[in-house]
């Protein structure tokens, strides 16, 4: 019922997550919950999962990444952090206490620039230009395929994200009124204003996006 989105632009990664916390399947406990965790100054991880696994695993990874920085004096790059996360998740997978989490890792480092990694609950990790977790994927991946291109500016990426959020709002049965947005670029992590679906529905984007 939860949704994570990520879009990699020319020199930034745009991360978005819904803000609903549900209980017993049907009750919306909270509608302003932040599902993203700051790993380092230029690395963000958004997580969804069952029964507390999401926060437990995310905090465990975040603390270990900080420990690496303290021991070695420099931050892990995005790829290294993703590999570390994948190794942990894969090791726990065949233990008695596997973590059931889906995550997106978005970061910026000097060697690779902006990168976005998709990881599912089985610990399959892959670098992608854009990604969505949750039921929201069924409503938005095609839109992203149509309008995404390699060199997107922040403005274009935000337009694309607005389209996707509008489509989820129109067609997904669960109500997700707000999305937390963060941008990771060379200057670090920037919190933007929460994005809400406009009334227009996903098929009507701004004129500039047509054609």
């Amino acid at each position, binding site marked *: 019922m939860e949704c994570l989105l990520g879009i990699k632009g020319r020199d930034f990664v745009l991360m978005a997550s819904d803000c609903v916390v549900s209980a017993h399947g049907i009750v919306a406990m909270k509608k302003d919950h932040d599902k993203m965790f700051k790993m380092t100054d230029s690395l963000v991880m958004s997580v969804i999962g069952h029964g507390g696994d999401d926060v437990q695993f995310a905090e465990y990874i975040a603390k270990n990444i900080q420990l690496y920085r303290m021991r070695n004096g420099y931050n892990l790059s995005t790829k290294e952090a993703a590999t570390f996360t994948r190794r942990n998740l894969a090791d726990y997978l065949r233990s008695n206490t596997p973590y059931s989490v889906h995550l997106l890792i978005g970061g910026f480092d000097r060697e690779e620039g902006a990168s976005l990694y998709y990881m599912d609950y*089985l610990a399959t990790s892959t670098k992608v230009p854009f990604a969505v977790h949750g039921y929201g994927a069924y409503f938005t991946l095609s839109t992203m395929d149509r309008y995404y291109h390699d060199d997107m500016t922040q403005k274009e990426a935000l337009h694309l994200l607005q389209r996707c959020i509008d489509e989820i709002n129109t067609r997904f049965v669960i109500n997700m009124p707000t999305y937390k947005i963060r941008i990771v670029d060379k200057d670090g992590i920037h919190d933007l204003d929460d994005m809400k679906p406009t009334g227009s529905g996903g098929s009507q984007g701004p004129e500039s996006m047509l054609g």
Partner: protein
Amino acid sequence: MSIMSYNGGAIMAMRGKDCVAIAADRRFGIQAQTVSMDFDKIFEMGPRLYIGLAGLATDIQTVSERLKFRVNLYELRENRRIKPKTLLSVVSNLLYERRFGPYFIEPVIAGIDPLTLEPYVASCDLIGCPMVAKDFAVSGTCSEQMYGMCESLWVEDMTPDQLFEAISQALMNSVDRDALSGWGAIVHIIERDRVTTKTLKTRMD
């Protein structure tokens, strides 16, 4: 829902005259949903030795990492490159260690022996049963289609160019008939003195 067909994929290797070729599709999907079209399933274990892994994507990544670790240690201890048939034994051991909780992958090995320069193609099942092939080896969700295509197109003693044509046509036409495989293909042609890598554009669906 079978675990081996959760992600989908296809690997194929063929033997030629003094050369081998290994090819794979590039799709990473979760059942019907395609997530990525550049997921690597073939890994280099030596300058003329490649292993392709088909099956559950997380185990493809875990086994390739664990195998590379073992091969690195082997090469440090022995101070020489690993032979293809030794790699087959290492893979078989790695998989059989997990006999009652296996990695859900079926590997295909293609390489040229570093000393005798013999071409070598082999495969295993998910618990490490080794099989050396004199012609071709296939693995994946469309293995039946791949067996049919390989049986029709493979002939003995193909040159590298003929081998490239044969393996490309065989893989492309097999994955086109499988919903869970495809979205592009990558082919490595391994000869005595070089490795050529080519990407193919297949039906992107």
